[in-house]
């Protein structure tokens, strides 16, 4: 969902690539209504690509038409229970690095970059 916003960096800047990540799994209640809600807002290709970078291979390349419980549970695991605690997000175009610390992405730029 986050995109590079360095001045002049206007193409090929999404999705940001994950690097040096530390993953933590936190179990939470399964909420199929939330998942169905979110699916309409997701950019599926970007999600699949990003998940692969952290070795999550359970997502199909194409979003299935039939959203059965098994699929939603798998999605729940990826979207809601898989947390990136530490790491970096790197712009594939300009290589700017945005840090993730304690699960919080930092998109701030220095004054010269905006």
């Amino acid at each position: 969902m986050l995109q590079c916003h360095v001045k002049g960096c206007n193409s090929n800047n999404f999705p940001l690539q994950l690097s040096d990540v530390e993953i933590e799994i936190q179990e939470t209640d399964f909420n199929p209504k939330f998942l169905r809600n979110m699916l309409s807002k997701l950019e599926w290709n970007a999600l699949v690509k990003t998940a692969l970078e952290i070795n999550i291979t359970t997502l199909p390349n194409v979003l299935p038409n039939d959203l059965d419980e098994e699929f939603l549970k798998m999605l729940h695991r990826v979207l809601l229970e898989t947390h990136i605690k530490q790491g970096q997000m790197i712009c594939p175009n300009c290589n700017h690095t945005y840090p993730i610390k304690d699960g919080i992405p930092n998109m701030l730029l220095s004054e010269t970059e905006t």
Partner: protein
Amino acid sequence: MIPTPNLDHLSPGDYEHVYEPAEDTFLLLDALEKDAEFLRNEIKPCICLEIGSGTGCVSTFLGKILGDGTALLICTDINPYASAITNKTGYHNSIQLDSITTNLVNGLLPRLYHSIDILCFNPPYVVTTSDDLYLSKSILEKAWAGGIDGREIIDKMLPLVDKLLSDKGVFYLLLINENKPNEVCEIMKNNYHLQSEVLLSRLAGREKQLILKFWRNTR
């Protein structure tokens, strides 16, 4: 009556880095509570966004209003310390908040273009000089210093509201009289065809605070 979020996990030391909820925060909570039925039954949000979340009190409260955990609650703050506290406040009140440290909504557009169903902003509204705003090194000062008419940050946000709001989206904005709320409503109407009303207003000491609510014509 929805209780004010529990902030017992915050220490006096935390309030050296983040602005403690005050009358303005509570007015925004009251406005959301006033609109609770409308938010739950008509808006039925998918994605909510709060800008300048501070302690996270407002988004936690919004999460409580919505109740069923079916909306994504994104919070931004320019202060990394506030982002961390926001997530903690959500956690301590059993509401999942997703903090991002950024200036206003940098990095969120264009991906969240016309995607936000509920947008909240308690801006830095205090009238100061431009120098106070741009030369200050204090992160806490950024939470309140608003520059000329207290409008300098608010005016940066206004064009972004149109980009962020979904067709059914609503925007809640806290202002004080010195911010010239009528002028803000005119800008939103003339430039972006956004309708508005004063949802609540209250005197806090000498400060007249109000909550403006904006929505698209199409609704």
